[in-house]
């Protein structure tokens, strides 16, 4: 089947809202090349359990592409339409099962040497979608470094290049300052899923206790989900002569739904049930390392929920052990604060990159603070890149001066 054969009844198996959306955009879907159409269908199929920002983004994207002048659209789509797709791939049911089709397609594009053309074509197509007007000011705090030995000259080096590095921060009121800043910012954002607190350990009452209108999620709080995903991974890892462990894991996890891992025991919200499940089924690392969990959760929140307020707290991950041991037991035997700090520094840098992608110019304040230490970075419109501030001040004062 090819996209031009799509009709309204093709989506009869979709949930109601998804079906309406697909029919509304049928003329676009029919014109999309087969190498990108299933990606749209996957997002459409999941609309019922998507964040509001995801729904808006998808609609904006589809409307923009649908409105493109035919010649312009044709020029953008033709390089993608020119990519060959094997008959066996075409015969798969990519309309009803786009999530299963996409990994097969990706493997085919790699093996047929077409992945570069696909990258270029897809980038050009999506670059034609205009940016939405966005006046939202976004605030991000990252806390990291619990229990680590930290040297002034070697801390937060990548982030320091993006803003002001503080070497003499006063920490006595740090938690209170962060909480107040979040509380104040979150109070201006009443939309659902706009404010988040993610913790690599357990939710801190000191932080979360006074935060209303904020969704809090922790590594410990999702441990049941994680353990169930690990169990499924264990069952798929043995390499045989005919197929690889990595692909088996991926396939098995892709086919794991929130129902399979009992996400309803964690929350009654179907949007969160899917989101929390996919944090472990569509990733590598969060299943075993809390640092990977915080980085990945931050990334996925920014990409999908587009939060206005975000607090990410990295905590020590378990020490590196034999992979089989880590897969077999969700309970760590020891922790590695030093390695975790280096992981978190990179994670925080990636969190900044991700947030910079969605924030409007001049509308992001990003602060990373090494817990209980006088070191921090603020990146944002008021923080000149590559600057060092050695003046003692509190976090509240730092935000006032540079935030």
């Amino acid at each position, binding site marked *: 089947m090819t996209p031009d054969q799509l009709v309204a009844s093709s989506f009869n198996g979709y949930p109601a809202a998804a079906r309406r959306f697909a029919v509304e955009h049928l003329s676009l879907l029919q014109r999309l090349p087969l190498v990108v159409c299933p990606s749209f269908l996957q997002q459409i199929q999941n609309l019922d359990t998507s964040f509001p920002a995801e729904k808006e983004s998808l609609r904006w994207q589809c409307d923009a592409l649908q409105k493109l002048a035919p010649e312009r659209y044709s020029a953008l789509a033709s390089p993608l339409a020119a990519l060959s797709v094997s008959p066996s791939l075409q015969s798969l049911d990519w309309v009803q099962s786009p999530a299963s089709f996409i990994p097969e397609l990706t*493997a085919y594009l*790699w*093996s*047929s*040497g077409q*992945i*570069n053309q696909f*990258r270029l074509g897809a980038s050009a197509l999506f670059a034609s979608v205009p940016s939405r007007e966005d006046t939202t000011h976004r605030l991000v705090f990252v806390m990291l470094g619990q229990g680590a030995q930290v040297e002034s000259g070697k801390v937060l*080096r*990548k982030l320091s290049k993006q803003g002001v590095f503080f070497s003499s921060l006063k920490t006595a009121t740090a938690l209170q300052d962060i909480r107040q800043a979040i509380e104040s910012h979150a109070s201006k954002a009443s939309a659902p899923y706009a404010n988040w607190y993610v913790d690599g350990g357990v939710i801190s009452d000191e932080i979360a206790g006074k935060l209303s209108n904020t969704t809090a999620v922790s590594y410990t709080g999702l441990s049941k989900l994680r353990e169930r995903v690990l169990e499924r*991974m264990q069952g798929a*890892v*043995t*390499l045989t*002569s*005919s*197929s*690889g*462990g*990595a*692909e088996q*894991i991926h396939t098995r996890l892709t086919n794991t739904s929130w129902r399979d891992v009992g996400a309803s025991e964690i929350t009654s919200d179907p949007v969160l049930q899917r989101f929390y499940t996919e944090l472990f089924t569509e*990733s*590598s*690392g*969060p299943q*075993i*390392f809390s*640092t*990977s969990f915080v*980085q*990945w959760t931050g*990334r996925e929140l920014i990409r999908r929920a587009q939060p206005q307020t975000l607090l990410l707290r990295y905590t020590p*991950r378990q020490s*590196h*052990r*034999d*992979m*089989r*041991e880590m*897969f077999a037991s969700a309970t760590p035997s020891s922790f*590695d604060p*030093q*390695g975790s*700090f*280096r*992981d978190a*520094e*990179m*994670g925080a*840098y*990636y969190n900044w*990159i991700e947030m*910079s*992608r969605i*924030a*409007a*110019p001049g*509308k*992001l304040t990003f602060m990373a603070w090494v817990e209980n230490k006088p070191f921090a970075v603020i990146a944002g419109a008021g923080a000149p890149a590559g600057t060092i501030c050695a003046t003692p001040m509190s976090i509240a004062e730092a935000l006032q001066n540079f935030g």
Partner: protein
Amino acid sequence: MPHSLGHLSSPRAISATRRDFLRGTIGALSMASMPRSLTAQTSLLRTAQKTILVTFGGGARDEETFAEEGQENIPNLLHTLLPQGTFFSQVINAGILGHYVATASIVTGSYERFDNFIAQAPPNPTLFEYYRKGLRRPATDTWVIAPSNGFQRIGSSSHKNFGPEYGAGVILPKRLLAAALHDNKATDGEALSHLLQDSYEMPEYQPLQSGMDRELHLDMLESSLRLSVQDFVQKARSLDSADELSIYITRQLMKQQAPSLMMLTLHDMDIAHSGSYSLYVDAIQRADRLCAELWNMVQTDPEYKDRTTLYIMPDFGRDADNDPAGNGFQHHRTGGAMARTTWMLALGPHLRQNTIVDHPIESIDLVPTIGSYLGFETASTGKVIRELL
């Protein structure tokens, strides 16, 4: 976009950045100004030459190696080996960025297209087969030391004119250790499990399938490496990682067989798939140390000293920090320039020292180059690298 994140978006830019940092670091001179080593001017019998290829794998980026911020991770490559060798700042891998298929492409000199996750012989002839058939070398003269999963078939191709008859011996150190532990009935098998593990994407070490399989490995231990099970297990207890185990096997092979053509694939750094930056960087630092150790082994072994060419190259890079399709260092899935552009360091008596070559080469160019230098034919689709002849 509120911030400019688009630097280093092309292989040329990556190479230029790497080159600039290196010039500042080692003050390297241009290709034309460097004399060839005197040793190379003497007429050596090509067949007496030794060749070792090391893949600095699995997957290392510029940022953590030769770029400014990464240089602290590779002090040995930078300050000990690079001044003795020729450095290629732009090595392109235009093939599939999976470890087995990419490594197979390096040793066949052709971009292979098979499924990375299926253990299969490459369809194109390997360097080992070209070498053995072309120069009529014995089976004991070529070896591969490789991580276990998938790589067991890399020693020879399925090509009708070549095949196992001309292939390299393949040693999978982890399988060897597993067989030894089983035979030794070692009570500390669990304590050595860190030497057996594969990467996050290949987490489960494949259990040996049969008693015969174990026997074959134990036979290799004693016949090829001249190691008793007890000594091997004892040595393994002192090692920290699978890559260290591979270097130990290499050392033993050099002592006992003195092969003329060897390939060693390092793989610890693929722990990056777990998302742990610190473990990834630790593995790079370890690989850096092990490469220097290997070169030192070469220089102190009369069978190898002054007649060995060592090639060190990553199988490929990893995704760029700013590529929205990826998650930075963690994977190599985007096919972007950062993941496709790496480097190569070549050391040997016939090669220029302290030299940087800027123009692009491809990872498949090494096979025809080695063939051309040693004097055997290859059907590689790569091009001969003239600076290495």
